[in-house]
Structures are given as structure tokens and as C-alpha cells.
């Protein structure tokens, strides 16, 4: 009996996590009449109408494409610049290194609400408003510090002797870094990329502020529909379900490293 109590608690917790998701999925298969008609635990009439609307209406499905474009851009950019920086932080002592590291972290602490308006003005001024690049660059604000933090944790776990041996053997720095060092921390790169993807994918305030039509992300499309086109809950639920699917796929690939990633590579 004593061994079973934790299992029961764990199952209860997971059921608690799944209930709202179940409700969202159930809602997405109901017709509008059934939703507004009253409470039903399961859809009485299964309909794919909500999904068909999203997949055939360009204003909806372009939202997904836009989101995927800027999230990918942001992830590639953040990892590319964070790799050399993390290496510098994990291997060298240089003037102002500790202050620089903390300054980077402070940007992860900046509330997006504080930056929404200045960002809008900055990106309008340089003519990048309503482009994918604008959102990708803006999300660097919190993703680069995070990527540097995670990668630095993973890199510090690699013994310094590896670097020294490689230099003694006559490897140049770029050759050593790409051929020997990177394969050693590939799981760290994967985890950092996952986190950049995740935080760029879930963020809404900045993405919504920096776009109007051309690069409008799915999260902004959803809020607009919720407020202007009445109260179409079925459609909203279907759009929500479709935003969860990419996340669920990515989690599956990094499941064994996810805990270590959340610990910022420091466990």
C-alpha cells in the first residue's frame, strides 16, 4: 500500500494536467449550436468543420506559416551567436565577464510589456515593422541570454583537457570547435534549440505588437477572432489544438534531455 500512494498521486496530477486539454479537444469537434446549446461531456455530433475552416482560410493557415518562419529564424540566429559566446564564458576570464553575464540575464528578466511600445517604434523606424525578421530579432532579447546560459552549463561539463589536447595536436580553433567540440555538446545544442523554439513559439505580446498583416502570427490571429468575429468557441478551440501539436512533437524528441535543459545544463 505504501508503494502505491506516490503512483496514485502522480496519476491524479497527470489527469489534472490533461483535463483542460481534453476539454479543448472535445470543444474543437463540436458544432457551434451544440457548444452554445448547453453542457455536453462528449461531442454529440462529431464535426471537422472547425478544422476545415482553418485549413482552407488563408488568414488562418498563414498564421501558422508565419509563426513557424519567425520561430525558426529566431532559433537559428540565437544558437549561432550564442555558441561562441558560451564558449568564451565557459573557458576564458576576460575584462567584465561576470558583469556581462549578469547583464545578459537581466534581459531575460525584462517584462515584455515594458518593451512593447519602444519595440514598435524602433522596428517601425528602421522599416522592419510587420516582417518575420522583426519578430525573430525581438525574441532574441530573451532567447539569446537563455541559450548562452544553457550552452555555458553544458560546455562547462566538458573537461578542459579536450581543448588543450586538440591544440597540442595542431587543430585550429574553428576546426576544433566544429569537428570536435560541437559533437561533444550536441545534446546541449539540441536542448538550447528546443528552449529557443519553445519560448519564441509561446510568446504573444511582442509578436502581436510587431506585426500587422504580412507576418501576423497564429497567436495574434486567434485573439483577433476571439474579439471581433463574435464568440466562435469551436473555431478558437480547433486553432488552439493545432498550436499544441508542434510542441508535442518537439517534446518527444528531447524528452530525455528536457529535465537537464530546464536545470540549464547544471545538473
Amino acid at each position, binding site marked *: 500500500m505504501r508503494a502505491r500512494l506516490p503512483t496514485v498521486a502522480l496519476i491524479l496530477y497527470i489527469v489534472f494536467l490533461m483535463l483542460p486539454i481534453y476539454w479543448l479537444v472535445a470543444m474543437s469537434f463540436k458544432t457551434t449550436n451544440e457548444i452554445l446549446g448547453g453542457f455536453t461531456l462528449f461531442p454529440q455530433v462529431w464535426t471537422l468543420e472547425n478544422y476545415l475552416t482553418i485549413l482552407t482560410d488563408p488568414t488562418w493557415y498563414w498564421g501558422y506559416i508565419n509563426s513557424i518562419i519567425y520561430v525558426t529564424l529566431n532559433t537559428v540566429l540565437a544558437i549561432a551567436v550564442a555558441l561562441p559566446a558560451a564558449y568564451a564564458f565557459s573557458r576564458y576570464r576576460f575584462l567584465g565577464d561576470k558583469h556581462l553575464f549578469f547583464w545578459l540575464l537581466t534581459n531575460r528578466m525584462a517584462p515584455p510589456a515594458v518593451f512593447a*511600445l519602444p519595440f514598435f517604434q524602433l522596428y517601425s523606424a528602421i522599416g522592419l515593422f510587420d516582417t518575420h525578421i522583426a519578430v525573430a530579432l525581438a525574441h532574441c532579447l530573451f532567447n539569446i541570454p537563455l541559450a548562452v546560459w544553457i550552452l555555458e552549463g553544458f560546455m562547462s561539463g566538458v573537461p578542459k583537457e579536450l581543448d588543450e589536447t586538440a591544440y597540442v595536436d595542431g587543430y585550429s580553433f574553428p576546426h576544433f570547435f566544429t569537428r570536435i567540440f560541437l559533437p561533444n555538446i550536441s545534446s546541449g545544442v539540441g536542448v538550447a534549440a528546443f528552449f529557443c523554439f519553445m519560448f519564441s513559439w509561446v510568446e504573444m505580446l511582442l509578436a502581436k505588437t510587431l506585426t500587422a498583416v504580412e507576418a501576423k502570427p497564429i497567436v495574434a490571429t486567434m*485573439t483577433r477572432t476571439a474579439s471581433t468575429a463574435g464568440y466562435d468557441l469551436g473555431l478558437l478551440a480547433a486553432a488552439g489544438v493545432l498550436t499544441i501539436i508542434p510542441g508535442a512533437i518537439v517534446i518527444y524528441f528531447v524528452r530525455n534531455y528536457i*529535465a537537464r535543459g530546464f536545470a540549464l545544463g547544471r*545538473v
Partner: protein
Amino acid sequence: MSGKTDNQRAWFLVLPVVLLVAFNALVPLMTVVNYSVQETFGNNIFFWHGVGWFQDLLRSERFHAALGRQLLFTFTILLIEVPLGVAIALCMPKKGIWVSVCLVLMALPLLVPWNVVGAMWNIFALPDIGLLGWSLNTLGFEYNMTQQPLSAWITLVVMDVWHWTSLVALLAYAGLIAIPEAYYQAAKIDGAKAWAVFRYIQLPKLGRVLTIALLLRFMDSFMIYTEPFVLTGGGPGNATTLLSIDLVKIALGQFDLGPAAAMSIIYFLITLAICWVFYTLMTRNEAR
């Protein structure tokens, strides 16, 4: 920390990061500072206003109320999520296929876009047609998230617990599986009870990951905007108007640039001060 070599050329390696982040951080921050000391009547004409906005803000009851609600929210969810997360981590299996299943299912809420979290809980909690709202009302509880401040608050807190407890649990789990088996064997020989094992072996070993969890949860809950905005829109009345929501209302809703900028700066400074304390604690632990 000790094995590092002095190398000033390392600056070249961090330069791209510094440039990109500085472009994103310094320009907007200076814009905010600029607005915070000026008054405008539109048409891009500005007047020097000194520290007037800051004085107004620090005396404003609206700001005190929003700050109070924000602190209450942050400390409530920290008090619930950290112990619950550790408890869940202790319940998780150590090996076998169930580990993967648990990890994937528990991580799922973390990957849901924040506005979808709000929308999902809104639909879930609707008093007449939502699963949660309908069940509570059928059981005889007076529950209406859109009208009663208490219901709105409870929904908000439960939503955040749903969203983020897994983060604490995953961190604590990572810390737990890193404890060498020898520690448990030693405890067994000493005849230690489960509580003693937790108190004297597991908890001290978890110190570091728990500091990270506390730091991340504090930062993110203090900046929370999207989820409560979509769930309640700050209402009913102003009951769930947290700092971010109030700030966006002033900045983008009323376009009061001066007061909004002054509030941004004070908001950022509070976050910074508290995070600095956490960070110092964390790096001191690492140095030891």
C-alpha cells in the same frame, strides 16, 4: 571557476551576442527613459517634466493596488508550485518506460502558447458550458469567473499551477536522479525513515536546482501578461489587473507615454533587484 585562462580576445567571441542584445535592449530602454522624464500633448512635441511622473506614480493608489495584486499572485503561486513540484518529482518512477511517458505528458503544458493557455482555461471554466465551471456549479458551489473576484483569482492561480508546476517538478526530478545511489544505501544502513532521507539527503542536494526553479518562476510570474489578459482581461472590475496588464492598458490603451514609461522603469527595477538577490545566492552556492 578555477580552470579558466585569462584571454581578452574572448571579447571577439561574445561580440555578436552583445551587439544583438544591446540593439534590442538598450535602444528601447533609452526610449523608455526618455519618455519617463517628458510630457507631451501629441504631435511629437515634448516638454521636460523631470521626475514628476515618478512622484505621481509612487503616490498613485492604482499603482500600489496593481503592485499589491502582483506580489500576492507571485507569492501564492510560488508557495503552491515549489512544494507541489518537489512532491511530484518524488512520486515519479526512477526508470522504465513510464519515465518517458511521464516526462512527455508533464512537459506538454509548457509548450502551449500562452494565449492558448488563457483561452483553454476560459473555455474550461465557463460557468454554464465549461467542464470546470459546470461541475462546480452542479456540485453546489457559487462559481462565476466573470463576475466574482474570488472565483477569478482562484481560476488564475489554478491555471498558473497547471501551466508551470511541471517546470519545478522536472527540475527537481533532474536533481533527484543525479543523487548517487550510495547515499541511499548509507541511509538504509543507518535505518533512516523516508522523511529523514528527504530532509537530510534529498533536500540539500536539491538546493541548486530549486534556486533555479525559484528564479525562473519568480521572473516569469512577475512578468505574466498574456494568460490573465486572455482569461479575465484583468476583471471583474480590476480584481485581476496585474502589473503588466495595467502597464499595457496605460501604454497602448490610453497612450499615456510618460506615466507608462515611468511605471516601466520602476517595474523593471523591482524585478532586477529581486532577481539580483536570487542570482547572488545561486552563484555563491556554485562557488562553494
